[in-house]
């Protein structure tokens, strides 16, 4: 996704190595995805649903 849009930064974080992040984002299952600290979900989901989450995170009401 970051390949397609200059405003996207996509991080993959190995959470066992960074327990502070595991705690901050309350990671209890993986993969857990957090977008702009506002939208989050756990598990692998279909591409279309992922896009919906991105749209939600980028809507003006979500900041």
């Amino acid at each position, binding site marked *: 996704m970051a390949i397609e849009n200059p405003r996207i*930064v*996509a*991080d993959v974080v*190995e959470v066992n190595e960074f327990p502070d992040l595991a705690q901050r984002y309350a990671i209890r299952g993986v993969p857990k995805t957090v977008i702009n600290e506002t939208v989050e979900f756990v598990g692998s989901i279909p591409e279309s649903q992922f896009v919906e989450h991105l749209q939600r995170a*980028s809507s003006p009401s979500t900041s």
Partner: protein
Amino acid sequence: MAFLSHNDQNEIKRLFEQLSGDVRLIHFTQRESPLFLPGQECETCKDTRLLLEEIVGLSDKIHLEAHDFVAENEIAREHAIDRIPALVMTADGVKGKVRYFGMPSGYEFSVLLGSLVDASLGKSALSEETVKVLQGLDKDLHIQVFVTPT
């Protein structure tokens, strides 16, 4: 000891045959020191570096730049790197930023290889519809995917 077996290397070389553009791997790590500094140890930095060196050795289109996180903190800041080991993947066709924190082993290793191919080709494996939506998003988006090696 090598991380990648002979078979792994051959398989990855075959995968890399499709690479078209050059990919830069900007790696942030810790200089090896005989001194142990409590709170500053990076347990996977050395292994991550070795693994990346092995990957880079399998294609002349992949280039590794290793930076010391402390001594070269300006470069780290430029890429907003606040922890190590870290990896920033860039290529002409990559519009945004793709980063890895921690050692990309286990399942994440295959994800890394897939990203390398996508970055080199300058296109994602996403559907046309998704790409269209993505290109229409005009807000900075930071996607963090938390994983474990298994």
